């Protein structure tokens, strides 16, 4: 059994929940009546399913004739379709109050993604390309020191999550701006760390570029369109 993968999932779920809880306590989830925890989990599960199915089809394995393969997540999950599926699910579930829902999820999603990357510690999968930097780490029995690339990604995502949460509380940015920034930041982190990751055929770089572009466009559109429209200061709730 792949218990290390479950451990990594726990690493992701805890900061996701903690960020949603913090946002709710601080009033950041105002104007949003959906239960963001439910939306986040539903989006994550649907995204994972779509990403896994897409990866299976890409590998030439028919999900209908080999349904048991679907649960073997370690066999591969297509990142781009998984993210698209998760975003589409979140947008669909929260369609009546789209931007408050996506804004409410953005920082928590970054924290959860950071936790997933930090979960490399239980999966023994933190290391990337070889490096001589002082903080480079060698795997057991090896003299080759490597970038702890997943830790870089985790730190960058946690930092962004914290900054977005504080900004939402103090700055009250226009609806949609936080969601756009969150997407752009997540894509940027993956894009910048991708060259440090070991890979057989290159990572899904164009998906990251597309995510960055969409995030910047959403941020710019909402920031330009409603510069004086700010999120309302309502009572504290996430659900």
């Amino acid at each position, binding site marked *: 059994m792949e218990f290390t993968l479950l451990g990594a999932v726990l690493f992701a779920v805890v900061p996701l929940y903690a960020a949603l809880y913090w946002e709710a306590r601080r009033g950041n989830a105002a104007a949003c009546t959906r239960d963001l925890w439910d939306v986040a989990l539903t989006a994550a599960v649907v995204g994972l399913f779509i990403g896994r199915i897409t990866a299976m089809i890409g590998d030439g394995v028919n999900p209908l004739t080999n349904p048991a393969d679907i649960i073997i997540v370690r066999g591969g999950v297509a990142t781009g379709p998984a993210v698209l599926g998760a975003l589409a699910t979140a947008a669909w579930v929260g369609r009546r109050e789209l931007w408050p829902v996506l804004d409410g999820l953005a920082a928590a999603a970054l924290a959860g993604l950071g936790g997933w990357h930090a979960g490399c510690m239980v999966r023994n999968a933190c290391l990337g*390309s070889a490096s001589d930097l002082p903080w480079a780490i060698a795997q057991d029995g090896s003299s080759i020191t490597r970038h702890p690339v997943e830790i870089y990604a985790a730190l960058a995502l946690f930092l962004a999550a914290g900054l977005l949460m504080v900004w939402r509380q103090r700055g009250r940015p226009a609806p949609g701006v936080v969601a756009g920034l969150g997407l752009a930041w997540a894509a940027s982190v993956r894009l910048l760390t991708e060259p440090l990751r070991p*890979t057989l055929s290159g990572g899904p770089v164009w998906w990251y570029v597309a995510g960055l572009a969409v995030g910047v466009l959403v941020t710019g559109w909402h920031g330009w369109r409603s510069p004086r429209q700010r999120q309302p200061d309502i009572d504290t709730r996430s659900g």
Partner: protein
Amino acid sequence: MRRSLGTALLVFVLAACGGKTVDISRVPELPEISVDELSGVLAGSAQPVVLNVWASWCVPCRSEAPLLEKAATTTDDVTFIGLNVRDDQTGARSFIAEFFPEAPIDHYRDPGGDIPVGLGGNRGVPLTYFFAPHGELIELHSGVIDERTLALQIDEISSR
């Protein structure tokens, strides 16, 4: 009505994505090998070796097979060996025809399934061993292997 049509379309698309016809006539019978013979192959290899233990009845093996096929096809200067365990010839050849039709992987059979234990592993499948040149075991990965781990360990054994 629209939802039913959408579901039917999805099922049709998914069904059309698989169902490859497997022709095993082009796959030669797999030679049986002993632990001593395989150890000799590893010790005599001037290249690093990735040894994957698989079986046609093993669902996780099917899941990781496309990744190994890609690695074997795209990686130079590394030898890939497949060890089929506790399986029959027909099942093994069908699996190779479906997942490794063109991949440069040397496959052997171990009907008793004892060789992985003799090489320091266990009786579970899949297993992936990473050997430096001349047979030094660098890493043993139990269970399905992911792309990052496979690429990292190939980099490790290639650097020795």
